[in-house]
């Protein structure tokens, strides 16, 4: 379809004229306070419980473990989870107990979810998202998150700063740990397993990665697949942890990352094996092996399925990467 001519369409910008910085009403500057007013919360609760939750369950039959751990900490808390798919957020929110579900905000990348007004409105309403700066520590976004925690709102944060490009976890950034130290609220580690085959980062989006054989995908046909593909998912909540006396944010962040890796190990093996590995200090890193991109893809193991049970160590299915 041919683009209509100016003035019916927006004007193009002359090459010789420097563009002024646009007046920012989106991104970090977006005013999302409206999304926590009672009428909006009520509408969101209706949508979350009656649309989002059934839809998420439909495309990703979910097994939830460790919810009992949430009783050990008093809300508000900080949920720190690994991140492989856009499905992670609705899935995590809808697996939370009702009391927490409707009083939790989600830290979302300001440059991705809040770069346009319509996106900012949509995500603020649907997921109670708040914009955060993911590339660096930003005082303003930290202040907003801390204020909300102090105001009784729990916070979902993905410390990796974005979806995994290749199926392996990325290093955790310090935002969750910083907020926990600043507000004194506990961090609940969460491991979400199996969302990548359902709705992974697209091949195009992962172009810089190794091609992204989906974590636990059924084979090479899953690579670069677009759209939603039904697949089982597991969400595991860990034991709430709080910073020790004198523990700085960096070390606490490493501890949170390890806690998530233990949950991943628990999903890959079983609780007892995972605990023994913790004691031995041999918990595998969630970041995957060092090495070239194809070897990291190679090392990805298929997910445990409810029917087949967890694969035995060393016998995981390997798939030849599409070269």
């Amino acid at each position, binding site marked *: 379809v041919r683009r209509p*001519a*100016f*003035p*019916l369409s*927006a*004007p*193009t*910008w*002359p*090459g*010789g*004229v420097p563009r002024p910085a646009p007046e920012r009403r989106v991104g970090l500057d977006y005013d999302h306070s409206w999304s926590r007013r009672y009428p909006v919360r009520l509408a969101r609760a209706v949508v979350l419980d009656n649309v989002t939750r059934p839809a998420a369950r439909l495309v990703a039959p979910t097994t939830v473990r460790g919810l009992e751990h949430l009783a050990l900490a008093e809300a508000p808390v900080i949920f720190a989870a690994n991140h492989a798919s856009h499905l992670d957020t609705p899935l995590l929110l809808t697996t939370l107990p009702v009391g927490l579900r409707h009083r939790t905000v989600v830290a979302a990348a300001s440059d991705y979810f809040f770069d346009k007004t319509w996106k900012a409105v949509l995500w603020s309403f649907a997921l109670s998202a708040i914009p955060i700066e993911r590339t660096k520590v930003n005082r303003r976004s930290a202040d907003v998150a801390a204020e909300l925690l102090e105001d009784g709102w729990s916070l979902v944060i993905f410390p990796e700063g974005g979806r995994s490009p290749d199926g392996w976890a990325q290093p955790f950034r310090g935002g969750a740990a910083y907020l926990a130290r600043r507000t004194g609220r506990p961090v609940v580690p969460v491991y979400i397993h199996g969302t990548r085959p359902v709705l992974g980062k697209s091949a195009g989006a992962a172009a810089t990665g190794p091609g992204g054989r989906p974590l636990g995908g059924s084979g090479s046909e899953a690579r670069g697949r677009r759209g939603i593909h039904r697949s089982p998912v597991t969400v595991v909540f860990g034991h709430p942890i709080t910073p020790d006396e004198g523990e700085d944010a960096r070390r606490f962040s490493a501890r949170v990352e390890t806690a998530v890796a233990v949950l991943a190990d628990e999903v890959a093996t079983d609780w007892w094996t995972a605990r023994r590995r913790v004691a031995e200090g041999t918990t595998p890193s969630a970041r995957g092996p060092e090495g070239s991109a194809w070897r990291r893809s190679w090392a990805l193991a298929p997910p445990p399925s409810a029917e087949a049970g967890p694969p035995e160590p060393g016998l995981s299915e390997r798939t030849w990467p599409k070269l």
Partner: protein
Amino acid sequence: MSPRPGFVLEVDRSTPPTLFWHGERFTLERLPEGSRVIYAPEPLAPLEDPVAAIRHALTHPLGDSSPLPDLLRPGMKLTICFDDVSLPLPPMQAPDARQLVIEQVLDMAAGAGVDDVVLVAALALHRRMTEAELRHALGDRVYDAFAPHGLLTQHDAEDPDNLIFLGQTAHGEDVEINKRAATSDLLVYVNINLVAMDGGHKSVATGLASYRSLRHHHNPATMRHSRSFMDAPASELHSANWRMGRLIAESGVRVFQIETTLNTDTFPSNFAFLQRREWEWSLRDRATYAAASAALDRTPARVARQIFHAIRSPHALRSVHAGEVEAVHAATTADVWEQQGVVVEGQTDILTMGLPYICPYNVNSIMNPILVACLGLGYFFNLYRGKPLVRQGGVLILHHPTPWEFHPGHHPSYIDFFEQVLSQTTDPGVMSEQYEQSFATDPWYVHLYRTGHAYHGVHPFYMWYWCAHALEHLGRVIIVGGDPRAVRRMGFSPASTMADALEMAADVVGPSPTLTHLHTPPIMMADVQ
């Protein structure tokens, strides 16, 4: 954000089409890559408290002048003259700058116990203002206090009883001006300096003069040597007026000059897109343009004219200076250039401009073909300092419907000028010698000028003389979208489209010419380096 200065855009592939005025319409034209478009500076901040600024100017005069209150005394004869309906353009939203100033002057006069006060509209040979126009310029308070008593008058350049001959300059120029003004103890002149050409000695020496006096500088020779009108030191028109002004001062006429400048906030918010750069048009701007264009295409010219002439500009008072004429004018001119000046590098082969619906001589009236020529070749062409924007032998392309249409009440002599004079010659020198005198002294035109709302019989000649410099300088003048008969009558070339006009221009300036578009209004002045 502080206002941005003027800007010269170089058109490239991603430059959106450029807005051209086309009389009571506007259109978008895609200019060739490499063309330049000159945009006016954004409006500078207005005075925060105009009344306080006016009072300050009146009590702290520039040059060799006492504060106004010191010049006022009981029993004196005070005349307050003011610019007529030709300024500002478009007429400004109330309160008009003249009203603000004159109210302060009258307050001081009342405080000093001055009884003999007369207001005079400085028409020169322009048409008389209507009551509505006077009320708009002066405000109801002033109008109702003076008009019913006959103390609000309009200069009559054909009233021998109210003209006084003050002498001749060293160049043999007769100086004859309004008798009431010249014989007053104090003449206060209130200007609106819309462009750098306005004000100075020209206010009294032209605004209050008779034909006998005006003919010495409103003639082809003077106009050809005014390069440009906006640059007083290079303008013979101004030199003549300065000589006359000094003679007036030497004759004992005490002038207290008040000059005001406005910012370039020209169009109300409904038409904000008319003064925005096209690539910055918002959705609202684009929608307004599309809706206005579609509506105007279906609107009869007469109705469209009424709509546009109802526009009241949000011009805001930016500065006010008072005191001795030359000191005041120097300060004012600097202010005008600060607001309107745009530095432009070098001349161009082709200069394009879209002409709007209004010029100084068709406020609430029809823009006839002669006024189209005057606005394009007389005013817009002369919006420069240094060198003309277009090179010697270059082409000027105007965008205007140029209808063969005249307002019989306002421009009666224009009709005859168009039929009788322009059909014989377009040479200002020839028409000056052969036809001017008969039009200037025609008793019917004099009668209409004095009793109706008609411009003086000689006025269309002056309009043509304003074009003299451009006519001599340019290789060709093309009018896009104009009535071909009217355009040809004036010796110009009609073109249906801008593309046609550019092809025709290439015949004169050669292939691959340089092109510059003057994106005005808002008014700007090119400082051509």
